């Protein structure tokens, strides 16, 4: 078996790289795996890391450059934050994504004065909490928290049961019912600043605990006629739900791409573990079944990485087309990542269940990744979005033959995100599906290799999936994911979009040895095929060997396995024997 090609030497990193600030988590330091595990057990996040993030001006990442922040390319934002997710998703969610989510609503719908005020607060290092959904409400339209007009202010009453940073965020974005009717036009978004008014109108003292991301500071926020000035309504009254749906496209794109980093760390730990754990006179990595488990996880991981990265770029390249791709990524990527983590946990066996240094952080990552797929904007909500937009999407999907390959050119410069172009229509084009047949993509993938045949079959499967969905739409006037009739073909659709994204990335990643390798391409595309068929089969030995070889080689040399971050090396490998 030939060794895979060796990558170019990693590029020198920029000085503001969090990877450098945090240091190698496997060696002793203020934010090392040992302290992360201990903090998790104690249900807190690292104060050292929070201080580093503050010093780094973390919140500026969530402020558009036009308003004085650092947010230009969302792809770069993701890369800057991945070091956090490689270490502690609790910190990433609490310190990062929570504020990003809330702020995005203001960038989408706020007036210039509101935007300037929020930007100023964030640049001072403040947080905004997102008090949007409510427990057991199923959908934003059913949010029960109310805001009654009282002169020039709203009086907000109700409970948001699960809010990141509820007790310490300086501001909170609240989705409240402001109209009496039902449907999407009866809610508004209100910005409450804690320094304006708090007790006795607000109670945020109750902490809420979770099984995964234990360190997150989740709490309930209970409002009793909390006064919020009418001028703090974000967007016109009644537009709260649509605005939230637009904003969720950004979160649905970003969060999966960040979670990839947690699985990246997990894969590295798994490779080390499998090589080091001795068994039957060899190591765990010598067992063909262990290698197959590892390879399956890698294939899922690479698909998740490609898909989520492409969708993040899509926010910039074609914002109006992003409704379906972001929902598809939000739906499928957490599943792929959870499945990879599940496989790795089987590989770890008792070494994950009974926490054993230096792999103990894997147990935490496993729990953390499980949270990501059930968040308030979980798989169900994503599928509903696709279903709702399906009719229009099917039309536009058939209308396009060639893919705009800017989507796939990972790392290519991107301009600022045009928040005003994000919308709630399916948009005019389906680049991801088109990539499965695009002649340019096809040509770039070469003329030899089994992967081309697999790609052809997937393209056929895509046509078949669209035809099937046509029938489903025709039969049921009301879009719904409530029956298997919808859920099953939609699931298949998202798999095929992921395959298109992966093919597109391969076509654009010349020089990257992993995506250029026909066997890697075949492995990932076959994984999609297997999933389409509902099989949990293992890959062909030849494909297994190739994927494992890359993972082992990269782990040995301290280079990340992500294909989306070619130049993003970890710290130089520690000295021999120094594992912690």
């Amino acid at each position, binding site marked *: 078996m030939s060794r895979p090609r060796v990558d170019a030497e990693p590029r020198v990193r920029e000085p503001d790289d969090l990877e450098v600030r945090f240091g190698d988590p496997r060696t002793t330091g203020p934010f090392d795996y040992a302290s992360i595990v201990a903090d998790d057990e104690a249900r807190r996040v690292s104060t050292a890391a929070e201080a580093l993030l503050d010093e780094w001006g973390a919140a500026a990442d969530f402020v558009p450059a036009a308003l004085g922040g650092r947010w230009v390319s969302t792809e770069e934002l993701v890369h800057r934050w991945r070091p956090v997710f490689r270490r502690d998703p609790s910190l990433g969610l609490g310190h990062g994504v929570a504020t990003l989510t809330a702020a995005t609503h203001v960038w989408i719908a706020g007036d210039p004065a509101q935007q300037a005020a929020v930007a100023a607060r964030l640049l001072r290092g403040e947080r905004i909490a997102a008090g949007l959904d409510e427990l057991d409400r199923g959908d934003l339209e059913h949010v029960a928290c109310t805001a009654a007009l009282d002169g020039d202010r709203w009086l907000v009453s109700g409970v948001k049961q699960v809010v990141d940073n509820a007790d310490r965020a300086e501001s909170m974005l609240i989705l409240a019912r402001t109209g009496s009717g039902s449907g999407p036009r009866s809610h508004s978004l209100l910005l409450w600043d804690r320094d304006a008014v708090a007790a006795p109108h607000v109670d945020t003292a109750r902490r809420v605990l979770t099984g995964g991301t234990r360190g997150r500071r989740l709490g309930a926020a209970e409002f009793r006629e909390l006064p919020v000035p009418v001028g703090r309504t974000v967007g016109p009254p009644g537009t709260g739900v649509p605005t939230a749906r637009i904003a969720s496209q950004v979160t649905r794109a970003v969060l999966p791409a960040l979670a990839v980093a947690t699985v990246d760390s997990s894969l590295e730990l798994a490779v080390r573990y499998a090589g080091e754990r001795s068994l039957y006179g060899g190591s765990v990595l010598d067992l063909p079944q262990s290698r197959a*488990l590892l390879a399956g996880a890698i294939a899922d991981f690479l698909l998740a990485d490609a898909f989520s990265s492409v969708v993040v770029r899509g926010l910039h390249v074609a914002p109006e087309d992003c409704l379906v791709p972001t929902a598809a990524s939000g739906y499928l990527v957490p599943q792929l990542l959870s499945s990879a983590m599940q496989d790795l946990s089987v590989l770890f066996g008792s070494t994950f269940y009974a926490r054993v240094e230096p792999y103990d952080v894997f147990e935490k990552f496993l729990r953390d990744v499980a949270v990501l797929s059930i968040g308030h904007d979980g798989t169900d909500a994503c599928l509903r979005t696709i279903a709702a937009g399906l009719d229009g999407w099917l039309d536009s999907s058939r209308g396009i033959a060639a893919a705009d390959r800017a989507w796939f050119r990972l790392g290519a410069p991107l301009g600022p995100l045009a928040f005003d172009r994000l919308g709630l229509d399916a948009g005019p084009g389906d680049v991801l599906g088109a990539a499965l047949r695009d002649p340019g993509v096809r040509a770039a993938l070469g003329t030899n290799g089994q992967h081309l045949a697999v790609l052809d079959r997937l393209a056929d499967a895509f046509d078949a999936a669209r035809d099937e969905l046509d029938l489903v739409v025709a039969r049921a006037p009301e879009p719904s994911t409530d029956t298997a009739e919808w859920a099953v073909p939609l699931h298949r659709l998202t798999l095929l979009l992921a395959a298109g994204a992966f093919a597109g990335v391969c076509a654009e990643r010349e020089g990257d040895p992993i995506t250029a390798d026909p066997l890697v391409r075949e492995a990932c595309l076959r994984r999609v095929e297997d999933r389409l068929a509902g099989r949990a089969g293992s890959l062909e030995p030849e494909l297994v060997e190739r994927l494992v070889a890359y993972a082992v080689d990269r782990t040995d040399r301290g280079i990340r396995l992500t294909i989306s971050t070619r130049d993003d090396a970890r710290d130089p490998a520690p000295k021999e024997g120094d594992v912690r």
Partner: protein
Amino acid sequence: MSTADHAVLDEAPTVRAARRVVREFERHLGDPRDAASVIPVDRSVGLDERREFPADAIAAVDELGLQRWYVPEAHGGELRDFLVPMLMIRSIARRDLTVAVAHGVTFLGAVGAWITGGPIARTMAELVLDGGPVSWGLTERGRGSDLSNTATTASIGGHVVLDGEKWPINNATRGRAMTVLARSSDQPGPRSLSLVLVDKRRVDAATLTTLPKVATHGTRGADISGLAMRRAVVDPEMLVGEPGHGLETVLKSLQLTRPLTTPLSVGAADHAIGVALEFAVTSPAVGGPPARRPSTRSTLGTAVADGLLAEAVMVAAAREMHHATHEMALVSSLAKFLVPNTVDLLVREIAPFLGERSQLLGVAGAGGFQKVARDNRVVGIFDGNSMVNLNMIVNEFGTIARPDDPVDASLVVASMRHDAAPDGWLDPGRLRLVTRRGSRLLRALPGLVDLLGPRESARPARRIASELDRVVDLAAGAPRAAMPSARSFELAERIALCFGASCAIAVELGGPDAAGAASEARLRAMLDRIAVRLGVLDAASASASASLLGDLALEATRDGRRLSVLEGWEAAP
């Protein structure tokens, strides 16, 4: 122990009595939502969060005398039918898997002595009846599944002198005794290990050190720790079986202990499904409770089908311990792989339905689910992990694929009948390290399908049976290897799923309402689901049977009942 409780559990050895014992046990444990019950869920969640041992619950279970069902009748206990203690362990696991694991492990630690018999069995029986926790000391740090690599030594002379460490071991610290596997000879080969019972009260305490509790993913309160022995001197009469026969005894013990772990997962499934059903029926969600939504019915129905499959496999494995003792080498691995694996899958798939509730604790009644989701993972890891069990199945490919011994499917069904019980304790002399013809349940699948006649469930059953045919052909041709290929593991997994189908059919046909609509609804949904997992049926086609089962489960929940392949078993007079 109060005499009233005692009387309840002291019944004559009949099926009827067995049912009463299980029913009374369940009744004593009470409703876990009630804070005054024996194992209230809120307390369990709290203890788990603090990693505290559930001492009160264990004391209460001791009080109920469950340990007496760990000891065969011949040695002074109550054990006749393995299914009885398994159902009691399930009752505990349904409430708190940590408690079930902590109590049930004594059964595992003791089984070796029941197999070898002799005076050690009496000693073991006294220990267990006395309420002493016995732990099962096989594993050593850094050595995992490879028991032949055991490094703890036992030098056997006038005394047995033990040296070494066992880790991680359930109850190593709080346990009264440990059944220890140790190397008793320098000769290479499988006859160099011996099994020794270390009763901490009969060993110089200075030679024993317990090792610190390990932080675990689930069952956080359990005493998972270790025992270090430094020239610990043990009386030779504490040898479990002949010197040098330790590995053989362990391998035979595992054939019984592996099925004994399945009720842990079945109880976990009861818990997880109970949370989901309860949520579906009572959730205050706007737009009506989720139970009204069609996808809810099929999602729940699928989970219920998985839970029923796990239960059917548990029941069948318990029956086979008595009726096909010589096939337990294979049956134990099939069950030990399939049951926890199916329940893990169920838990993962039902979590999105519960949404944030699947993660929360201490809010709005949530908490049990996130605990049970973690807890159940232990079942696929200890006492032989899933990969080891698949490997055992691969090792049996040759016997599974051997030319058929015809099996009379109706005989198989007869031994699963709910109103039948085994004559008594099994004959350990019939345990074998390898089967001659695989499992009769597997061989009976085509015959079992025929018994279904014109029932709807025969359709998925036929697909599964022809898949088994195909897979067994492939298995016959698979190369024999100490480290089998991933392809072989996949075949083993498929064989296990087909085995699940046999169990489901045989157990349902053995039930009192075998021809009834409820039995058919359960069976159809179980088989459809297996067919989907095998990839021989697409998921959409299985949703009708899942929805129907979901409806039945929701209806049962509203009436305070739970669906079960043993319907009528516990309730019967």
